[in-house]
Every structure is written in structure tokens, then in C-alpha cells.
């Protein structure tokens, strides 16, 4: 996803001289081409994320579109108050890009696991929150947030995520992408678990259960219409995210369903429990530990599918 991001940012910068890229001394083998091509629109502030974010706000208030870039929690939690006061309160054209959402940096450990960022950034006024599901979405999301006025957060995977969509898929901020039709259960995914979610739906289909799959790449503003349609048209909803179940996609969907009097549908939130990982492991390993592998998701869905079967009868 980060390859798709930097490729599109480079293309956009060729056409729009307002675009700037600021990094907090991270981005090896990613940002060099941009830095070489646009030396006066690139900046490495050093290991100083609070300053990076304040500088980005100051530059944006002088008419620039500024992308800040770092990994995991560094461009978000480390400088949270700068995001809130300097960027969001001034509605500044700053786009925060974090690489390595969830457990993408697996073995590097707790400090490099981004598991609360969506919840926290979703609560900031004016902030648009986007977590693309595959490299195609990452590319389209990069172009979309560059065009969207005001603060945006782009949460990327690291590298090597499988492509799910065909090129040219219809991507609009705040609008879920229907990946698969189905009328028995709806699986809503955000971020890099989209591929696993589609695999789960395909396995369910082989078992005779037709699952609808929605890629909810934009967490804020949430596509509540797509959630409500799923609640009306299918008999259960599961949310799937590599993020704490507190405050992320699952919470956002639950908020919509709880306030919708006209629908009543069981909801299962799959994601990370509010704990720190107690063991070392790679990305795939940690997904397995928290039941976010294809098999893990299928197993977690069993009770809900059982109930749904009875309800249909």
C-alpha cells in the first residue's frame, strides 16, 4: 500500500505544486524519489513528530497541502494535541499518513503496533479517517484526500497486501465499496483485512451461505446508509478490523445500528481486544493469535451463523 501511496503522491505533486511531503526521519526506500524530484516541497524534520505536525499546520495555513508521513503511532498519538489544536481546530489542509496499521510491524513489538489510532482520530472534529483495504484503494484514497479540503488521516498497511479490487473501482470518500453481493450475512471490513474478509465470504459461499462484503475504507464520515441497508437486507452483521474493538469500525457501526429504531440485527465485532500483545510474532502470526486469520474469522462467526440459520427458518 505504501508503494501505491507514494506513486500517486508523486503523480499528484507533478500537477499540483501546493503538495508537500514532510517526514519524521522515516521512509527509507519510500520517499527518496519524491525528495529528489521535489526538493523544495520535501522536508525531513528529524525525529520530532510534534514539530512536524505544527510545521505542517503552519505551512497549510500559508496555502499548501501538506502530507505528514511516519510509521505506526508516531504521526498520530505522539503528536495528538498538535493534530487536535493546530491541524483540526484550524481546519488545516494536512494529510496524516501512517504506515503499518494494526500489527504490520509484528516482531518490532508493542511500540510499533497501531491498535487505537482509528478510535482516537475518529473522535477529532474535522478529521476524515480512511483505512484502505488494498493497494488499489490506497492509490485512490491518496488522490481523494489530496482533493478533500481539511484534515485527513490515511492509515496504510505496510507492503505486500494482495489486491482485491479491479483497477478503476468506484472509490468515493464516505461511501463503502460493495465487494460481494449476499443476502444472509454482511461482513464489513476496514483496512488490510479486506482480503481475508473476501476469503471468508468465499468459504461461506462454498458452505452455502451468501455473505455480502463491504469495504468500509472511510471510517469517518461513515457510510451509515450502507450499514442500514445491510441491517435491513441481511440477517446479521460482522465487522472485521485490525484495530481495537473499542472505538474503531465495530464501534462506529454499532453507533449507527443502536440509533436506528427501524432495524434490529445481531452484530459481532471482530478485532483486537483491549490488551497489549504478550508475545513476539510476525504479522500473520499475530493475526492468528487474535483470530483474524481466515480460519479464525470463520470460527468466530460460527455462533452468529448458527443463530441466523434458525432465524431464517
Amino acid at each position: 500500500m505504501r508503494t501505491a501511496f507514494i506513486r500517486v503522491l508523486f503523480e499528484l505533486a507533478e500537477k499540483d505544486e501546493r503538495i508537500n511531503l514532510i517526514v519524521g526521519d522515516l521512509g527509507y526506500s519510500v520517499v527518496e524519489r519524491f525528495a529528489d524530484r521535489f526538493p523544495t516541497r520535501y522536508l525531513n524534520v528529524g525525529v520530532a513528530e510534534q514539530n512536524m505536525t505544527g510545521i505542517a499546520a503552519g505551512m497549510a495555513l500559508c496555502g499548501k497541502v501538506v502530507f505528514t508521513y511516519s510509521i505506526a503511532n508516531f504521526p498520530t498519538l505522539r503528536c495528538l494535541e498538535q493534530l487536535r489544536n493546530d491541524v483540526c481546530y484550524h481546519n488545516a489542509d494536512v494529510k496524516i499518513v501512517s504506515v503499518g496499521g494494526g500489527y504490520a510491524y509484528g516482531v518490532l513489538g508493542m511500540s510499533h503496533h497501531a491498535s487505537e489510532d482509528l478510535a482516537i482520530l475518529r473522535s477529532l472534529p474535522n478529521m476524515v479517517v480512511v483505512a484502505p483495504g488494498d493497494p488499489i484503494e490506497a492509490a485512490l484514497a491518496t488522490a481523494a484526500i489530496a482533493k478533500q479540503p481539511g484534515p485527513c488521516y490515511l492509515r496504510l498497511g505496510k507492503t505486500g497486501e494482495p489486491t482485491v479490487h479491479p483497477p478503476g473501482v468506484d472509490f468515493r470518500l464516505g461511501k463503502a465499496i460493495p465487494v460481494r453481493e449476499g443476502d444472509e450475512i454482511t461482513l464489513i471490513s476496514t483496512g488490510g483485512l479486506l482480503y481475508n474478509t473476501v476469503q471468508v465470504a468465499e468459504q461461506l459461499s462454498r458452505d452455502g451461505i451468501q455473505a455480502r462484503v463491504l469495504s468500509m475504507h472511510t471510517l469517518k464520515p461513515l457510510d451509515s446508509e450502507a450499514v442500514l441497508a445491510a441491517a435491513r437486507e441481511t440477517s446479521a452483521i460482522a465487522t472485521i478490523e485490525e484495530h481495537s474493538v473499542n472505538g474503531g469500525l465495530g464501534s462506529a457501526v454499532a453507533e449507527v445500528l443502536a440509533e436506528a429504531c427501524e432495524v434490529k440485527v445481531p452484530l459481532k465485532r471482530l478485532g483486537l481486544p483491549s490488551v497489549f500483545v504478550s508475545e513476539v510474532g510476525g504479522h500473520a502470526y499475530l493475526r492468528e493469535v487474535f483470530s483474524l486469520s481466515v480460519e479464525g474469522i470463520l470460527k468466530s462467526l460460527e455462533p452468529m451463523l448458527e443463530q441466523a440459520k434458525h432465524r431464517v427458518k
Partner: protein
Amino acid sequence: MRVKPGQPDWQDRDRFILSKGHGAAGVYAVLAEMGFFPVEWMLETYCQDGSVLAGHISHTGVPGVEVSTGSLGHGLSIACGMALAGKRDGRPYHVFAMLSDGECDEGSTWEAVLFAPQHGLDNLIAIVDYNKIQSLGRVEEVLNLEPLGAKWKAFGWSVHEIDGHDFGQIESALRDIPFETHRPGCIIAHTVKGKGVSFMEDKLAWHYKAPNDEELRQALVELRVTE
């Protein structure tokens, strides 16, 4: 400063950022006097319900306020961003940031202090209001900043130390910008908190208190505002 009260978003205006956002009233008063907004706003609505004039400086609905602050250690970074944008775009404006001594405790302030000389931001002037008192005590007792001027100098700034109450010294310090080519400028303004009002001078309590009617009368006499 080169500003146009009738055109607060003029692209080449000088920018002033009050990083010590609790000094909002002073900036509002100056902006009102200059005609950015009616003086009545200040006299009648400051910190009142439904007003746009908050106790910590806020830009929403207030022409002339560049940036909202109040949490310390934010302003100098934003000023660096504006100064860098001005340099890169070849704009002639200057950026002024006023800091408190207390906010020199914030690590983020020193991130910005490191940054500005690295990028030769000689269009940036930081002014430290060095009154030697912070929220809960004297600076030297809470977290000693000395030698403060030498610290800024060691980080690569061109430093002037002045009596912050002497308008002659303020004017002469700000007459020639940049102080040195390719170096940001820093004015350490030695001040006395509550200067000019005998019972307020150098007293921590007046960071928090508002004067009662009698104290206000006496203060205005001492400041020669009224007889």
C-alpha cells in the same frame, strides 16, 4: 509589522503568533485598536457567554488572529512552518512568535528551536517573555532555564537580550530583520510580571486573580490611565 486591518488574509502580511495563548487579551486589544474588529467587542464581550473572544487566543470569528493557542509549546512550530513556506515561496513577510518562559519547559519548543536554524529561517523572530515566574512558582525553582540566552545562541539563533518594558529597546531590537543572515532571531525580553502596578509586580497570585473594584481603580491610577 506590515499588516492591513481591512484585509486580514493579505498574503504578504507579517504574521504574529501568540504562543503563550493566555496573553490573549493583550493581542485582542491591539487588534481592536488597529481596526481589525470593533473595540466594543473587547470592552463588552471578552470572555462573556456567546462571545468570540476566548481567554486563550482563538482565531474563530476574530479577524487578525493568525493561530489559536493555549496549550503551551505549539506556537513556535507553527511559526516555523509559516516562515519556511514564506522562504520557499519567496514571500517577503516576517513571522513573530511570542513565547512564555514557562513554555520553554516543553520539549516541543526545543524541537522547533533546533529546526529553525537548520533551515536558515531568518524571517522568523521568537520573543521570550522572561518574567521568571511560571504557573506554580519561580522559574529558577521549578525548572531553571539559565543560561537562557546562551541556550538559544548555542542552538544557532541570533539573540538579543533586552528590557522588555523599554519601548526604545524593543524598537531598536526589531528595527533590522534579519538580525543575522540565515539565522532566526530571538529576543529574550526581561520583564516583570504585573509591571507598573505596585501590588501586582512579580506576584504569582496575579496570574490567576482579577482585581476587585478598588484594586482596579488603584491599578489604573498607577498606570496613569485615570487620575
